[in-house]
C-alpha cells in the first residue's frame, strides 16, 4: 500500500496543480512538497527495510483478472536503491527548476507525471504494470524536451521518443512471448523469474526473447551503437530533464537487464554475455574517446554517460555478485554525479549563455564555488576513490575479471576506460575550470544558496557512498546474490 502511495502521490500532485488558477506561482511549491513527501516515504521504507528478506512492502491484487494481470508491486534492495535515486533526483529537479517562468504549471505537472513513471518502473512486478510505467515515462519527457528545450528541441524530442519507443516495442514482444509460452503463461515477474531459474524455458526460446528484451533495454541504457539519441536529447533538454534523463531514465534500461533478462532468461544471458561484454567495452572506450573530442560541455557529459553505463553493462554481462553489485553501484553513483554535472553545466549556461568549451575558461577564478564544484564532480565522475564513482567501477572490474563468462581482455579494455575517463574529464577541467577567466565567465555570479542546496545532498551522498560502501551495498548485495546464483550457478 505504501508503494502505491509513493508511486501515485505525484499523480495527486498533478491533479492539484491542474486545479490551480492559470497564473498561479504555487505549482512549484506544490510539486516540491509532493516530491518531498515522496522522498520522505521512500526514506521510511529504506529505514524499515529488512535486508535479509527479498521482496517487501508487497501489494498484490487482481487488476484485469481475465488476462491474469495483477496490480503487483514490491521492493527489494535493487529496486529500493533505484527508487531512492529517483525520488531524490525528482525533488532536486523541482528545486533546480525554481525559476521556471515559461508555462510553469504545465512544466511542474510534467515533472510530476514523469515521477509517477520512474517510481513505478522500479517497483512494478507485473509485466503489464511495468510496461505501462515504462511507456508513461516517455510522454512527459517528450514534452519536457519538446516544449522547454533548446533550439533543436523538436528534433531531439521526436528522436528520443521514437527511438526508445521502438526499443520498447521489442520489449513488448518479449513480454508477450513469455506470456504466451506454456512454461511462462503469466505476467507476474516473480513467477517468471522462478520459471527461468528452474530451467523451464527452453534455450532457443530464451535466446530470442533475450534478444527482444535486449533491444528494448539497450536503447534505454544506452549501449553502443544505440546511443545517439542521448547526446541530442541531453543537449536540447532543460537542466532538470537532463538530470532525470541521465540520473534515472538510463537506469531503467540497466534495471531491466537485472530484473528481467538475467533472472528470467539465465541460459540466454550466459550465451549473450560475451556479446554484451564486448558492447560494454566499446561503450566505455568509444564513449570516452568521443567525449574527449566534444566542444559542447553538455555533450561531453552526455558521452561520458555512455562510457559510464558501459561499466554497468560490464557488471551485468559478468553476472557475478561483484559485477552486479558494481553495476547497481555505478547506476546509483552515476545518477548523483552526472546529476551534479548537469546541474553545474546548467548553472554555467544560465550565466554565460554558452556551453562551448572554447568560450569558457577560468571558472574557478570567476566563480570559485561553481568552478570548484565542477572540478569536484569531475573527479567524482572519473572514479576517484573515496567518492562514489570508484565503488561501482572497481567492483565491476573485479566482477568482470572473476566472471567465467567473459574473456579477460574485456576487463582489461574496460579498465583502460578509467584512464580515458580521467583524460576527457581533466582535459575539460583544464580548459573550463582552470586558467584565466574568459570574456564569457568574467564577472559571472557564483552559485546561489538555492543552487548550493540542490547540490549539497548530492555531494554528501557522493562522499557517503564512496567512503562507506555498505551504505548502498547492504541493500544491493543480498538481492544481487540471488540473481547471480541463477546466472552463474555459484555465488
Amino acid at each position, binding site marked *: 500500500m505504501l508503494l502505491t502511495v509513493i508511486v501515485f502521490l505525484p499523480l495527486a500532485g498533478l491533479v492539484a496543480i491542474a486545479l490551480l488558477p492559470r497564473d498561479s506561482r504555487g505549482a512549484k511549491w506544490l510539486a516540491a512538497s509532493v516530491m518531498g513527501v515522496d522522498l520522505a516515504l521512500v526514506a521510511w521504507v529504506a529505514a524499515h527495510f529488512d535486508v535479509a528478506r527479498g521482496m517487501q512492502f508487497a501489494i498484490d491484487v487482481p487488476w484485469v483478472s481475465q488476462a491474469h494481470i495483477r496490480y503487483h508491486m514490491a521492493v527489494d534492495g535493487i529496486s529500493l536503491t533505484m527508487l531512492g535515486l529517483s525520488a531524490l533526483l525528482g525533488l532536486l529537479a523541482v528545486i533546480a527548476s525554481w525559476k521556471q517562468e515559461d508555462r510553469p504549471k504545465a512544466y511542474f505537472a510534467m515533472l510530476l507525471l514523469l515521477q509517477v513513471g520512474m517510481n513505478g518502473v522500479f517497483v512494478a512486478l507485473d509485466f503489464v504494470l511495468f510496461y505501462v510505467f515504462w511507456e508513461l515515462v516517455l510522454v512527459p519527457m517528450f514534452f519536457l524536451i519538446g516544449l522547454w528545450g533548446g533550439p533543436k528541441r523538436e528534433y531531439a524530442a521526436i528522436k528520443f521518443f521514437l527511438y526508445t519507443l521502438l526499443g520498447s516495442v521489442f520489449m513488448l514482444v518479449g513480454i508477450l512471448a513469455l506470456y504466451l509460452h506454456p512454461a511462462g503463461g503469466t505476467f507476474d515477474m516473480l513467477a517468471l523469474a522462478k520459471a527461468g531459474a528452474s530451467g523451464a524455458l527452453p534455450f532457443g526460446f530464451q535466446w530470442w526473447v533475450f534478444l527482444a528484451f535486449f533491444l528494448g533495454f539497450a536503447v534505454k541504457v544506452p549501449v553502443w551503437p544505440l546511443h*545517439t539519441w542521448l547526446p541530442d536529447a541531453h543537449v536540447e533538454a532543460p537542466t532538470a530533464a537532463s538530470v532525470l534523463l541521465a540520473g534515472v531514465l538510463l537506469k531503467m534500461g540497466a534495471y531491466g537487464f537485472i530484473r528481467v533478462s538475467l533472472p528470467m532468461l539465465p541460459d540466454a544471458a550466459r550465451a549473450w554475455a560475451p556479446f554484451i561484454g564486448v558492447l560494454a567495452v566499446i561503450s566505455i572506450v568509444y564513449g570516452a574517446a568521443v567525449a574527449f573530442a566534444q566542444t559542447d560541455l553538455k555533450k561531453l557529459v552526455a558521452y561520458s554517460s555512455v562510457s559510464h553505463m558501459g561499466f554497468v553493462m560490464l557488471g551485468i554481462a559478468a553476472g557475478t555478485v561483484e559485477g552486479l553489485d558494481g553495476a547497481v553501484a555505478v547506476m546509483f553513483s552515476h545518477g548523483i554525479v552526472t546529476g551534479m554535472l548537469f546541474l553545474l553545466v546548467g548553472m554555467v549556461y544560465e550565466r554565460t549563455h554558452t556551453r562551448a568549451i572554447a568560450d569558457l575558461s577560468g571558472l574557478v577564478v570567476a566563480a570559485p564555488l561553481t568552478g570548484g564544484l565542477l572540478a569536484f564532480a569531475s573527479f567524482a565522475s572519473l572514479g576517484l576513490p573515496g567518492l562514489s564513482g570508484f565503488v561501482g567501477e572497481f567492483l565491476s572490474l573485479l566482477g568482470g575479471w572473476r566472471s567465467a563468462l567473459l574473456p579477460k581482455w574485456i576487463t582489461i579494455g574496460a579498465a583502460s576506460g578509467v584512464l580515458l575517463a580521467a583524460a576527457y574529464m581533466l582535459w575539460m577541467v583544464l580548459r573550463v575550470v582552470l586558467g584565466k577567466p574568459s570574456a564569457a565567465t568574467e564577472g559571472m555570479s557564483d552559485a546561489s544558496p538555492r543552487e548550493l542546496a540542490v547540490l549539497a545532498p548530492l555531494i554528501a551522498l557522493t562522499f557517503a557512498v564512496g567512503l562507506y560502501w555498505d551504505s548502498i551495498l547492504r541493500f544491493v548485495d543480498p538481492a544481487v*546474490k540471488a540473481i547471480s546464483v541463477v546466472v552463474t550457478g555459484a555465488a
Partner: protein
Amino acid sequence: MNWLVAIPLLPAAAFAVLWPLSRRARNRLQWLPLAAMSGSLALSMAAGVAVVRAAAVESSRGAVVYHAAVEVARIAGRPLRMGLRLDAVSAVMLMVVTVVGVAVQVYSLGYMHRDDRKGWYFAVLSLFSAAMLALVLADSFLLLYMTWEVMGLCSYLLIGFWHELEAPRLAAIKAFLTTRVGDVAFAIGLAVMWATKGSFDFAVVLADGAAWPTGAAWPAGAATAVALLFLVGAMGKSAQVPLHVWLPDAMAGPTPASALIHAATMVAAGVYLVARSMPIFHAAAPVALGAVLAVGLVTLLVGGALAVVQHDIKKVLAYSTISQLGYMFVALGAGSEVAALFHLTTHAFFKSLLFLGAGVIIHATHTQDIREMGGLHKALPWTTAAFTAGALALAGVFPFSGFWSKDEILGTLWRGGQYLPFAIALFGAAITAFYVARLWFRVFGWNQACSLARESHAEMIAPMVVLALITLGIGFASPWFATLLGEEARLPDPGLAAASTAVALAGLAAGWYVYGRSEARGTEPLRRRWNRAYEALGNKLYFDLTFGELLITPYIALTGRLSRFDTSVIDGAVDGMGAGWRRLADSGARFDIAVIDGAVNGAGRLVKAAGARLRRIQTGRVQTYQRLSIAALIVLVLWIFLRGV
C-alpha cells in the same frame, strides 16, 4: 592503541574544515593544518616508541603491533574490510611522512605567505598528508589503492596550484594521467588478486603471521601477473622509466609541495607498494624481481644522465629523485626491502632538504635557471650549509645519510652476486656525484652577481636546519634500522665503503673540474665533443616526444575522427532510417490518396449520384408516403397471391 586512527584523521579533518570555507577564512586558518600535522607527528612518535618496545622482544621483531579494521561492505556475503595496521615498516614511514610534512608546513608559512590562496594550499597539503599516512597504515591493498589515488589528486591540485599559468595546468594533467596509466595496471592487479585470493587484506594475501615478510602460497601464474601489474602501478607513482615523464614537469608546482610530494613521500609510495607486496614478488621470482631490478637500473641511469644537462634547479633535483627512486627499485629487485626502505628514508630527508633549499634560492634570486645563479654562499650562509649537507648526502659522502643507504644497496647487490647491476649502480653513483657537484658549483660557486639575494625568514631556515641535522645523523642508525625491520644488523663493508666513497669523490672531482675551477667557465668544448649525446639528453631522451607522437597526438586525432564517425555514420544511420521511413511514408501517402482513398471517394460519389436521383421521391408530404406504402402493400399482397405462399 586506537588513537592510531587519529594520525591520518587529524590532517584529514583539517582539510574537511578548510575545504568548505571561503578563501579569506581559509587563509586565516592556515595554521590549522600545521597543528593537525604536529599532532600526527606526536602520535607517530608514540607509535614509533610502541614499535621499538615491541621490537625489543626478539620473537616479536617486525610483527604487527596493532591492527583494527571495519567492514565497509559485504560482497557476496564476504566481508570487505579496511583498517589500520602498525608494524615497523609503517612506523618508519609514519616518521618520515610526519617529520618531512611538518618541516614543509612550517617552511611553507614563509614560502607562501604572500600567496592569496595559501589557505587552499595548506588544506591540500593536509589532505595529502592524511592520504599518505593512511597509505602507510593501510591493512589492505584496497585501502592502499584508494589512498594512493587520493594522493594523485593532491599531487594534481598542487602541481596545478598556479593554474592561471599554462605550464602548471598542463603539468598537472600530465602527472595525473601518467600515474593513472600505472593505476590501471594496479587496478587490474587487484582484480587478479581478488579472483585468486578473494581478499585484499595483507593478513590474507601476504599470509604473514609473525614474521614479515614470508612467502605465501600463491599460484605462480597469478603471482606473476599481480606482481608485474603492481610493478607497473608502482612505476607510475614512483616515476620509473618510461612513466617518469610527469615528475620533472611536476616541478611547476610550489617548491615546498614538490619537496613533500614529488621528492620525499608520495613518489616513494611505489617503492612502499613493492616492498609491501614482496611475498608476492618472491612467489613470482625470478621474473618479477628481475623486472623490478631492470626497471630500477634503467631508471637510475636515465634519471642521472638527464639530471646532468638540466639548467632548472628544480628539474635537476627532480631527475635526481627519479634516479634515486631507481636505486630503491634496484634494492627491491635484489630482494632487500630493508635497503630500499632505508634509502627511501634517508632520501626523503635529504631530498626534501635540497628542495627546501632550492626554494630559498629561487625566492632569493627570482630565477630557477642555475646558469643565472652563482656566488650565493655569501648571501645565504645558512641555506648554503644546509644545502651542502643535503648535496653531500645525495652524492653519498660519509658520514651523510646517503652514503649509508646507498652503501647498503651496493652491498646487497655485491653479496647477491649480481655484479653487472652492481657495476651499473656504482656508475650511477659517479653520475650522481657529478651532477651534484655541477649543481653546487653553479649555484654557490664563483663570485658572481646576485648580491641582492638575502636570507629568508626564520620559519624557512629552521626546518632546513632540522632536516640537515637528521641527514647528518640518521646514517649511524643504519644497523638499528635493520634490526627494527627484522633483519640482521650489518655495518658497511670497509672495502665496499671505500670503493663507493672513491667513486663519489671521483664524481665530485670531475664536477669540480668542469664547473668548479675558476678558469672553467663553459661546457662548450664538452658539448661539442659529445654533440649527439648532448642533443639526446637535451631532448629528455625523446621520451616525451615519443609519447606525444605515438600516443597522445594519435589519440586526439582518433577522438576527433570517432566523434565525426558518431555524428555521420552511427547517428547518420539513425537519421537515415528516419528519413527513409519518411520517404516510404510519403510514397505511401501518395498511394493512399490516389488508390485507396480514390476507391473510397469513388464509392462515395456513386452513392451521392444515386442519392441525387432518389431524393426526388422524398417530397416531404405525408400522404405521398402513405400512397407509396399502400401501393407497395398492394403489390406485396398481389405478389403473395400470385406466387402462392
